[in-house]
């Protein structure tokens, strides 16, 4: 069942079209990743979905009902984790959790009980009474996440929730998010970390310049690049133009090039051995050819013409 449907959302700031006709859907028990570089339109899209911005065009539907027809109902169904650590630094972790629980509509008793559960689940019980300003970055990120979960939202909107923290803290948070979907919650996860999108998300939408360029599961996206056939060629390519090589342009597409290496994708499904044979027959000295499975970075590279580095 669809929890969230964004339908042709658009938003313009002055002369800048930040989001241009973005559509996607988040279902129950699913993690949908919105992957793109900084400034791609991820946060603007998320802001329209949670009601911080009104779209210039398009519509947001939460559990089948338009967001703006009943914003309070929609907000009760969702939990939002902002990119910033938007918490009270002078309050303790427990006090922050309890406050945001009360804001989400819980009674005092329910907020206290739920805060205790979350502190334990997020491994923060030992520091629960300490002021947030004494926490490490990773601990603050965990509280930041927990504050959106007090009322057990059906839809969770996470805006780059692991920015600026170490790998171990990131893994803890990602594992926690995976557990949430097992209870049926749907997650919209914006990130510019490829690895997170690859390992965490069930489906991924690649966004750049306010437009969704491709969408699908990781294998679906990978298939867009020559059915899992990418060839890394090592040799001297400083003054060469691969597209001018006889038969190359009909069979391959260059994804990335340097003086010493070419990364090419096969255009059609074929036996990898045939691809290797065709590459080795090219009129250039090639020292080594490696067959590799396309990564999300390479998908992004193919779609946008630039890399998305972590």
């Amino acid at each position: 069942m669809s929890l969230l449907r964004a339908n042709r959302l658009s938003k313009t700031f002055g002369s800048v079209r930040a989001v241009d006709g973005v559509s996607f859907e988040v279902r129950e028990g699913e993690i949908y990743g919105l992957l793109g570089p900084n400034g791609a339109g991820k946060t603007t899209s998320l802001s329209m979905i949670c009601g911080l911005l009104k779209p210039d065009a398009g519509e947001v539907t939460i559990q089948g009902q338009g967001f703006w027809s009943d914003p309070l109902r929609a907000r009760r169904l969702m939990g939002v984790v902002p990119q910033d650590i938007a918490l009270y630094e002078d309050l303790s972790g427990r006090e922050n959790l309890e406050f945001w629980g009360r804001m989400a509509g819980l009674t005092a008793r329910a907020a206290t009980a739920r805060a205790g559960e979350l502190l334990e689940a997020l491994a923060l019980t030992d520091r629960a009474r300490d002021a947030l300003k004494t926490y490490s970055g990773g601990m603050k990120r965990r509280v930041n996440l927990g504050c959106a979960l007090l009322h057990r939202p059906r839809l969770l909107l996470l805006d780059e929730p692991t920015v600026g923290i170490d790998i171990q803290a990131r893994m803890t948070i990602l594992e926690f998010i995976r557990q949430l979907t097992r209870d049926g919650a749907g997650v919209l996860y914006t990130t510019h970390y490829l690895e997170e999108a690859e390992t965490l998300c069930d489906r991924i939408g690649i966004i750049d310049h306010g437009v969704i360029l491709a969408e699908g599961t990781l294998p679906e996206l990978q298939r867009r690049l020559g059915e899992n056939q990418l060839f890394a060629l090592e040799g001297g390519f400083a003054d060469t133009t691969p597209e001018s090589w006889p038969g190359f342009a009909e069979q391959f597409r260059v994804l990335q090039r340097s003086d010493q290496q070419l990364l090419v994708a096969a255009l059609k499904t074929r036996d990898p051995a045939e691809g290797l044979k065709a590459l080795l027959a090219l009129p250039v000295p090639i020292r080594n050819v490696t067959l590799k499975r396309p990564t999300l970075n390479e998908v992004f590279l193919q779609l946008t013409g630039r890399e998305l580095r972590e």
Partner: protein
Amino acid sequence: MNAILQIARNDLRLFLRERTSWIWLVVLPLGFVYFMGFAARGPGGPVTPTVEVRLANHDDGFLGRLVLEAMGEQGLHVVPPENAEAKRGITIPAGFTDRVLATQRVDLEFFKVGEDTDPAAAMVELRLVRALIVVNSLLIEHAIATGGAPPTEEALRGLLRRENPVTLRSSFAGRKPMPVGFSLSLPGNLVMYLLLNLMVFGGASVAAERRNGVMRRLMTQPVRGAELVMGKVCGLIALGLVQVGIFLLIGQFLLGVNIRDHWFAILVTLAIYVWVAASLGVLAGSVIKAEEKVIGVCLLVSLPMAALGGCWWPLEVASPALQSVALAFPTGWAMAALHQLITFGSGFAGAREEIAVLALFGLAANLAAARWFRG
């Protein structure tokens, strides 16, 4: 409603946790109350200052002691004849009592030391005369009452202690007295610091929450925009009432300002004024983006409003033009109401107009804060 209370409670908790809050809420304002109250203290109520007079009493009878007592009643403090401070003196001759009882004339010797022109010293002569009139009156009254029987010490003291059949009460006529001392400095500083604190704390906290993303997060909660604004306003109102409570208690019990007589009307006036200041604070935080600018602007706005509103000096000493300018600010109306209630002793009826105007200021500021609130 629950959201409003939660936001207000949380903001109050955050304000009161800051140690600097207490400095601005209590320590600094009360320091100014004391300093300004002490500097601007008036003459106070009508009192008889005590002045010193040299006395050489050579009499060993009871009438000499009675003269001394009558001099004390007139505010004269008797010192030994060798005292250099006293500039006037009197000598009671030996055998004074005996000669009076024998109905013989006795002269008391009055003398001056140097040519002192101190008005207080000059008052000694008048008081001495009044003391001697008292003693003579007692003797005459006793003689009339007893048909000329010799007076006894007990009888004369009984007459001296008797309540006077005629007393004089004095009060201010014409215009009301000018507020002075703590009756001016307590409400003046309270009105000024309420405005300053609530504008600075309110404006800075709204700006800070907007900067660190807390405000955006609040706006993703199932809370209406109006509830968010009112939560912020109510948090500041609660903070202001904490300051009001502390000031009124200290004013009543430590500084002797008359709060008790009209405490409820004073509280209502200040609560409405706090609402005005809190709304202005939220408004400032909404229309000014950066925290540091908010603080600067709030100081620049609140201090002139305090001065022009009569928080620093009584408006009674200002020109009519400045008195009219004060009516443009909530501080002017708040001070006018508080003077009616504290200094002039009026009840609700006397401050009704001022309280109503303050409420209009509150409504306008609150609507403006809601209209321009920015998360």
